[in-house]
């Protein structure tokens, strides 16, 4: 695939434009996780309510649906900002490749529209629709949350591993958007990785909130249900994420060797390459790190003596900022492994004792796991996106060829940063307000029959 023969745009604020885009993603992606995973948990609760008639499930589902609406409303606007920025910050990117990747966003737009319609029906339909129809109105929310993120990730996979077009005299021709987006070798692992991440983030954040509540003494059955459902969802997703992450890394090793070398800080091409934990990359090697011999070759190619390409085998102008990528990668892997360990502990205790853990340390760990999972999520996106630099379309278009020539970037950046600070404060404020509302009085203590476990209202 030949280059486009473009020249870099005269833009003194390229870094600021990139930071502005990154800021917008950092705000938006955690909200996306809730859009993908939260509806499934709410529907599970409502389904349990319909099966058992136990109003505790209903109370949790109903209160969570209010939080879902609030987070979705904020996600709508941060998502709108992203679609503005695609054109405003990177007009060269949309102008050149809009015909290749735009289809993904068109499908995403419809998914998102359906999601918005049914969230409206679901949130306002409590007690207005029959119980069955109300539950049914939630199903499209789950489905569209998946299809919408699927198409957006298809666009990202295409940016990592572009295909479905060819370049002739600096113009993009023979465009085939369907193969570009959906027959892409990066799509499967990126999507599954993100989908599991959504359940981990939504699960650990929610469980973390109720874990804090427990440490403060709030531990009625309502709170236990509200903790047990998300912690279970996150606990089954976290171990699987390690497997999917390994798959993702091997695909990167095969198709984006420069990203792999950056992730690992591998300066020189090495046979039987070691894996370094921690440390700092400088002068072609990792200093102050713990080296595990041959592990990188083993992980990346399933052969302890395999040769791994080093950073020195690529032109210096094609390298991403190694330490940013490497530290982000190590943070993601480290936090992800710790979360998987916590998950295994939970599953083990559940199978041995048959009840929720009793000790405070578990709940303290859960309280930390919530924010940690968000950090891992963002670190993962930094890994894949900064790891793609200096390209916006890997190997085809450089980021400095895509950027706008507009001079107003610093002003826009400042305004956006202030606005998003306000949005973050507003979200914290409204979640606290929603959480602080008294629980409905309709919650009778469930007279639980020990033999059937059946809650009777």
């Amino acid at each position, binding site marked *: 695939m030949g280059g486009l023969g473009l020249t870099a745009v005269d833009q003194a604020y390229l870094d600021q434009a990139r930071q502005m885009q990154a800021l917008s993603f950092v705000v938006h992606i955690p909200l996306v996780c809730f859009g993908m995973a939260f509806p499934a948990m709410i529907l599970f609760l409502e389904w349990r309510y319909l099966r058992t008639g136990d109003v505790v499930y209903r109370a949790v589902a109903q209160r969570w649906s209010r939080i879902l609406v609030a987070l979705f409303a904020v996600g709508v606007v941060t998502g709108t900002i992203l679609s503005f920025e695609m054109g405003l910050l990177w007009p060269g990117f949309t102008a050149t490749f809009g015909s290749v990747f*735009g289809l993904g966003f068109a499908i995403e*737009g419809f998914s998102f529209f359906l999601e918005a319609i049914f969230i409206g029906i679901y949130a306002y339909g409590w007690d207005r629709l029959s119980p069955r129809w109300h539950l049914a109105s939630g199903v499209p929310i789950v489905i569209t949350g998946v299809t919408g993120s699927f198409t957006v990730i298809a666009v990202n996979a295409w940016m990592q591993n572009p295909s479905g077009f060819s370049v002739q005299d600096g113009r*993009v021709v023979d465009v085939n958007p369907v193969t570009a987006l959906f027959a892409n070798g990066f799509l*499967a692992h990126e999507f599954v990785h993100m989908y599991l991440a959504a359940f981990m983030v939504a699960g650990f954040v929610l469980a973390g909130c109720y874990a804090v509540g427990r440490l403060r003494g709030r531990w*009625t059955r309502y709170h236990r249900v509200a903790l047990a459902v998300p912690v279970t*969802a996150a606990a089954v997703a976290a171990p699987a994420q390690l497997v999917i992450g390994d798959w993702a890394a091997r695909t990167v090793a095969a198709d984006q060797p420069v990203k792999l070398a950056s992730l690992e800080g591998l300066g020189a091409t090495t046979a039987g390459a070691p894996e370094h934990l921690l440390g700092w990359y400088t002068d072609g090697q990792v200093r102050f790190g713990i080296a595990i011999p041959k592990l990188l070759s083993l992980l990346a190619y399933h052969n302890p003596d395999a040769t791994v390409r080093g950073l020195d085998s690529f032109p210096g102008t094609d390298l991403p900022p190694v330490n940013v990528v490497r530290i982000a990668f190590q943070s993601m892997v480290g936090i992800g492994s710790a979360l998987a360990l916590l998950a295994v502990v939970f599953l083990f205790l559940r199978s041995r004792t048959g009840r929720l853990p009793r000790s405070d340390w578990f709940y303290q760990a859960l309280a930390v796991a919530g924010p940690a999972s968000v950090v891992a999520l963002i670190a993962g996106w930094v890994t894949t996106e900064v790891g793609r630099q200096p390209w916006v379309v890997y190997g085809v278009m450089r980021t400095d060829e895509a950027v*706008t020539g507009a001079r107003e970037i610093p002003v826009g950046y400042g*305004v956006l940063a202030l606005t998003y600070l306000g949005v973050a404060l507003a979200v914290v404020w409204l979640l606290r307000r929603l959480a602080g509302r008294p629980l409905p009085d309709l919650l009778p203590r469930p007279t639980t029959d020990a033999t059937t476990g059946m809650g009777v209202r």
Partner: protein
Amino acid sequence: MTLLQVLPMVFVLIELSLYTLLGGADLGTGVWQLLAGRGPRAARIRTYVYEAIGPIWEANHVWLIAVLTIMWTCYPGAFGDIASTLVVPLFIAGIGIVLRGTTYAMHGATRGPEDHREITTLFGLSSVLTPFALGAAVGAIASGRVPVGDQPGGYLTWLNPTSVLVGVLAVLVGAFLAAVQLTASADRQADWEMSRAFRRRALVSGLLAGAVALAGPFVARHDAPDLYTGLLHGDGRAAVAVSALAGLVALGLVLRRRAALARYAAALAIAALVAGWALAQSPQLLPGLTVAHAAAPRSALIGTTVAVIAGFVVVAPCLGLLFWLVLHGRFERVVQSWPAAGTVHRASEATRRRRAGASALTFVLGAGAVVFGTTLWPQVVGVLLLLAALVGGFAAVGPGELADEDTLDGALTADIGAGRKLRMS
């Protein structure tokens, strides 16, 4: 110029009309929140508006997102040029949308618009800012101020006479649509006080919008002669006439207390005005660039056209359902219906262990296939096995029953963990 090259532009114009109509009505409610004034009557108005927005809420921004995505897929070069030149107004509109959506979400956590009035004020201000900036961007394109090529527009290009006129018109039209919609909604609920209040507002904003629209030709004649010629002497003439007539009919219907019907006349007025603009500058998209020249390669146009039509086939009935539920007042009446408590067979501990074991085995098989599979199919099978293991594992844990356990032990009142007394809340 082939049909395929024009069709996406027709979609864009339809969606722009729908955004003006539906999104405009949403945004217009913010104007009335802002202008409600003080005192108990103002509080009543704000509360009524707040409750009426209800389930339709922020979803209407999807029309705008659709406009953007179709533009950049089907007319990528022109979209890039517009984005470069009009970065300032489009960014302001984006910030306005963020503030509005956030304040909307914050209201979900208040007791209504009277609780934390500053949120209501910010909501109102952003509801004015957004349509003004978007209207100004449209005005800049219509008056031929977006050149072909990546030309930065600076801070002030968008504050030209035509842009300001279109921006003000967009705000007033939104306010009018909102007032008409709120009148119709009050009529349906037999809330005559609100019906009177918003009928008056609809008439005032409708007359103002009409006056600004009438000023349009005079401004355009000096500021954008091509647009003036196209609208009043060229292909746009018939559409402009239809728009003016439909606008008058809408006002007349409001005056005759037929607000529900007036909505349709207003919709026609807006669609005709957008069509008039399109015909006035057709076939030019930007000065010197025709729609046909701006169009993307054939396969992208086909893909988008198919996606838009297929999407519309799916979305239209769902949107129809939502509107039907709202317009029939289904969200206003409570149907209390508890399900009968069913008999729940609780999984025995042995069953649970079997499920857990099966899930663990599936997990190991799936992980093995993903890690050691070298071709596509073992990996696909592996991922499916992993997902099956997740669902099975979730069921085996049984979070619902898990939350029961402490109750069975009577641990609610017992000391747990570090031995703290637990508060029953």
